[in-house]
């Protein structure tokens, strides 16, 4: 029997931002947007549900989250129904699992949906919760909570070893804000950004300033992954195949850092190699990518470790315009985390939705003739790396 192929049909997102809403409202909004994107889809078509959220238990008092969504979305899952928690990589983890569930025949139509309600009545509680997403008894008790200090250390090391500059980092903020200015669901829509604004912004954690950092964001996203046969019943659009995936984790806390210094991310390189091998493509085949720009320095290092430029040359690469819409391989064409914002569990599916649109030729910032696309998340203090590669053709 021929192997089944997993196809991603499309999906939808809630408005991202500081939302006057409950997490279950956000999940419902994303499901509605998903349904609008795939009009033939009925709730009862979905036999598998993967719910991706890290904060739902703590911030919304919803520990066993998946059954809540069964009720709220009118689903009747028969193959799988569970919550996944891998922080920032939540819904890309769901997409990897959905691929396996479809290809193995366990599921036919899977919804992967992610959401976070980050903002609570008092802001201190959000920052306090951030101490609980790292290795609590060790790094967190040192004060490692909100991410900017850790990524500031990474930026300082990359600047020292490779000569990366604040100006080069600002090219990432400018590109991503300008992409996001065309995305009505982005947290900062319709804001654009100039180099002057980026370079004169207030410092957050030296050398990172305001626009180097993605914001904390409330929001939800949902995508539908189905077998090729079921997908043909549900959509007339060109099919987008999940070609290959990789997820690498090497450590939970600073003591296990796998690189020679903080500026080298060998665990991402390994995740990319695994995904490229499974997808039977290389970095040169990627036409468009959505990668984890939690900070400008992250995008720069990821471009290196994904093989889009040489190690250490991420700074000059972004400054050359290589991530812009008129380049060979535009990056984060919906605004990325920097403009869209980052509701952790929702970000992977948000990336997937943009890449599906790109491969179906219906993106707002369309990359002409895009055939192969790549999504990447890191989670925690660069503790885990997740790569998903999509294509217009299945792996032969």
């Amino acid at each position, binding site marked *: 029997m021929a192997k089944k192929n997993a196809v991603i049909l499309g999906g939808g997102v809630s408005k991202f931002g500081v939302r006057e809403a409950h997490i279950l409202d956000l999940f419902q909004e994303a499901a509605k947007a998903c349904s609008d994107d795939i009009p033939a889809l009925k709730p009862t078509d979905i036999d598998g549900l993967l719910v991706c959220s890290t904060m739902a238990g703590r911030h919304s008092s919803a520990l066993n989250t998946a059954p809540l969504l069964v009720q709220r979305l009118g689903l009747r899952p028969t193959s799988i129904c569970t919550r996944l928690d891998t922080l920032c990589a939540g819904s890309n983890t769901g997409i990897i699992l959905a691929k396996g569930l479809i290809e193995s025949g366990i599921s036919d139509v899977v919804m992967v949906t992610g959401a976070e309600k980050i903002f609570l009545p008092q802001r201190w509680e959000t920052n306090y919760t951030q101490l609980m997403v790292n*290795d609590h008894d060790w790094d967190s008790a*040192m*004060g*490692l909570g909100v991410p900017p*200090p850790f990524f500031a*250390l990474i930026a300082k090391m990359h600047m020292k070893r490779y000569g990366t500059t604040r100006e080069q980092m600002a090219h990432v903020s400018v590109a991503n804000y300008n992409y996001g200015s065309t995305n009505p669901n982005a947290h900062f829509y319709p804001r654009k950004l100039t180099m002057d604004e980026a370079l004169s912004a207030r410092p957050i954690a030296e050398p990172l300033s305001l626009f180097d950092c993605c914001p904390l964001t409330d929001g939800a996203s949902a995508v539908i992954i189905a077998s090729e046969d079921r997908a043909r019943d549900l959509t007339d659009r060109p099919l987008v195949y999940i070609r290959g995936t990789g997820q690498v984790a090497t450590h939970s*806390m600073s*003591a296990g850092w796998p690189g020679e210094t903080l500026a080298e991310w060998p665990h991402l390189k390994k995740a990319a190699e695994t995904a490229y091998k499974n997808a039977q493509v290389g970095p040169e085949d990627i036409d468009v990518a959505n990668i984890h720009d939690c900070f400008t320095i992250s995008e720069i290092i990821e471009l290196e470790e994904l093989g889009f430029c040489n190690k250490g040359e991420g700074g000059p690469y972004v400054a050359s315009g290589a991530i812009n819409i008129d380049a060979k391989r535009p990056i984060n064409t919906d605004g990325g985390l920097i403009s869209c914002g980052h509701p952790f569990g929702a970000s992977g599916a948000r990336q997937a939705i943009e890449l599906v649109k790109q491969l179906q030729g219906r993106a707002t910032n369309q990359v002409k003739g895009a055939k192969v696309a790549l999504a990447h998340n890191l989670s925690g203090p660069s503790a885990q790396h997740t790569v998903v590669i999509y294509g217009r053709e299945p792996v032969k």
Partner: protein
Amino acid sequence: MQTARIEGTPALDGKYISEMDLWPLECKEFNRLYKFYDYLREGRFTTTRCQKCGNVAFPPGVICPKCWSDELEWIDLPTRATVTTFTETVTGAPLGFDAPLILAWLDFGKDSPVKQLLARIVNCPEGKLKEGDEVKLVVFDVPAHPIEVKKETKVCERVYYAFEPVEKVA
């Protein structure tokens, strides 16, 4: 606009909530690594070494993450390290931490089984730390918590650690 009196969450009535605790549960009733904290009280920075394969893990554990043996022994780690790089959080430090919150990437040297570690630097004013500075272990008290033992309440005293400049900076 009427201002309501803020009374917090009435059912909790000032109770200790371990789920909201910044510090580890260190006592032997809740943590098999309690010796790490006992050794801290003696000024020792320790971890576990596997007696089967010799692997040194950090953080310590009850099995060896390399060979999964549970035959472990406690060993001392260096209490001095060198600052590779650091960052100072002046505004927006998490609740429970005062500004400047200085986090440093520390190098424990070639001979240490734990080479690199992130740690907080204390007893150092803003703007004084430099890359290459030598720092040393410092142990301090952190808030105690209650443990219910049948009808009694026992108090668990706690310590934690950070690093401070070897040469006192004003």
